[in-house]
C-alpha cells in the first residue's frame, strides 16, 4: 500500500473505532453489508425482526469486541508494539536501499560513458588516445564507491543483504577496468589491482566470485 494511503487508512479506522485498541470493529461493520446484499433481502428483515435480536446482537458485539476491557489487553499491546518496531526497521532498511540505489545509478551512468568511448576500439582507432577519457572517469568511480562504502557502513555485517542492488553494476565496472588494463598491458587485471583502482577497502574476497565471470563476456 502506498504510505500516504496507508496512514490515512490507519487514522480513519482508528477514529471510527470506539476503542482504539480494536479497530477491527470497522472491518466487522463494513463486511456485514457485503454478506447481507449477497443473500436475499429477507435476511435483513429477519435479522431485525426477531426477538432473539437482542441476544444475538450481544453475542455479536462480544465477537466484535466493542467494549473489550475483560480480555487480556497486554497481548494486543505487545503485538502492536512489535509491529511498530517492524515498521520502523523496514522503513530504515527501505531508506538505506534507496540511498544505495541512488549511488549505484550514478555509477551506472559513469560506466556507460566509459563504455561509449571504449567501444571505438573495435573500429580500430588508436588505443592510447581512446583510453584517456575513460581513465579520467576512474577517478569519478573511485569517489562514487567511496560514497557507497559510507552508506554501507550503516549496516555492518549485512554485506549480502543489499548486495543485489549494487552487484551487477560493479561487475560491469570491473569488466571495463580489466578491458582497459588489457588494452594497455595485455595482462589480466588482478583482483587486488581492481580493488586499488576503485579504492575499496570494504570489498571482500567473495567479490571476485561474481565479477570475474563477467570478463569472459
Amino acid at each position, binding site marked *: 500500500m502506498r504510505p500516504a494511503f496507508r496512514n490515512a487508512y490507519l487514522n480513519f479506522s482508528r477514529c471510527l473505532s470506539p476503542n482504539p485498541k480494536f479497530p477491527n470493529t470497522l472491518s466487522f461493520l463494513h463486511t456485514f453489508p457485503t454478506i447481507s446484499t449477497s443473500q436475499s433481502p429477507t435476511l435483513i428483515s429477519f435479522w431485525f425482526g426477531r426477538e432473539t435480536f437482542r441476544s444475538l446482537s450481544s453475542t455479536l458485539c462480544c465477537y466484535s469486541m466493542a467494549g473489550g476491557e475483560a480480555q487480556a489487553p497486554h497481548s494486543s499491546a505487545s503485538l502492536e508494539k512489535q509491529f511498530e518496531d517492524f515498521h520502523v526497521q523496514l522503513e530504515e532498511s527501505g531508506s538505506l536501499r534507496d540511498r544505495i540505489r541512488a549511488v549505484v545509478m550514478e555509477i551506472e551512468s559513469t560506466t556507460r560513458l566509459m563504455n561509449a568511448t571504449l567501444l571505438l576500439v573495435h573500429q580500430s582507432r588508436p588505443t592510447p588516445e581512446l583510453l584517456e577519457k575513460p581513465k579520467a572517469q576512474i577517478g569519478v568511480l573511485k569517489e562514487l564507491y567511496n560514497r557507497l562504502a559510507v552508506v554501507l557502513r550503516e549496516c555492518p555485517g549485512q554485506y*549480502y543483504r543489499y548486495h543485489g542492488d549494487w552487484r551487477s553494476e560493479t561487475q560491469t565496472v570491473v569488466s571495463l577496468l580489466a578491458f582497459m588494463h588489457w588494452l594497455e598491458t595485455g595482462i589480466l587485471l588482478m583482483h587486488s589491482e581492481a580493488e586499488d583502482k576503485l579504492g575499496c577497502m570494504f570489498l571482500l574476497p567473495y567479490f571476485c566470485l561474481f565479477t570475474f565471470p563477467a570478463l569472459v563476456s
Partner: protein
Amino acid sequence: MTSNDGGEGTSPYMSIFEGFRNELDQHHDRRERCIKASRDITAASKKIIFALQRVRTLGSVIPENISRTTQPYYDTIYSSFAAVAPDLQGLNAHRYARNITGGLQEYMEAISFQYYLEKQEIITREAAEAQLNQGMQVEARIAIGVEDYILGLYDMTGELMRFAITNMATVGGVPQARHDGDGAEISNTRTVLSDLRELSFRLETLDSGSDFHFARDASKKLVVTKQSVDKVERAVYGLLIRGSERPKGWMPDLSDAPREEIEGF
C-alpha cells in the same frame, strides 16, 4: 579473455583460478546444505501442523498423544538447523537467507501455531528465535529475521482458519480460551476470530519497503490471509445467525456453493 603471451603467463593465473574454484565449491556446498536443510525442516514442520490440527481446545497444553507425535519432528527440525548453523554465521546469514527462508518460515508457522493453541497469543520474534536456538543446543546462533517472522505469521493465519472451522464443525462454538495457564477459569472475550482479525489488520498495515522479494511474497500472502479471515467470518455468521432458527446441533453449509434462499420466518 585469455592472456596471449605464450605459456609463461598461464601458471600464475592457474593458481588464482584454482583459488576461485575452491571458494566457489565451498560456496555451492554451503548453499546446497542450506537448501537440503530447508526442505527437511519444511516437511517436518508440515507434519507437526497436521498433528496440531487435531487439537480441540484453546488455551491449554497440547494433549499428550499429539505432543508424542510432534516431538520426533521437532527433533528432526532442530538437528537440521544445527547442521547448517555454522553455514549461517556472520555475513553468510544473509548470503544464504533466500535458501533457508522456506524452512524458517514453515518452522515459524509451526511454533507460532502451537504457541497460539497453548496460550491464545502470538509468539514474539524474540521468543521464537530463543526457542529455535534453545532447541538447537549449539554454539552458533541462527537469527529469525523480520521478514521470515512476518511471512511465517501469514501462513499461520491459514492454519488458524482451518483450526477454527474444524472446531466449529466438530465441537461447535467459536474457539476461545476458557482457562488461563494455571487452569483457572477466565472470562475471555477474545476468540479465534477476533485474534485473526487483529493479526490480519496488523499484517495488512505493514509497509513492506523496497525489498523486492519480501514485498512480493507479503502481498501474495496477504490476499490469502484476508480470504481466510473471510471464511471464518462467514462460518461464524452462519452459525450464529442461521443456527438460531435451526434445531440444536445443526451446522451451516460451509461450502462455497451459492446459498439457498431462506424460507419463510
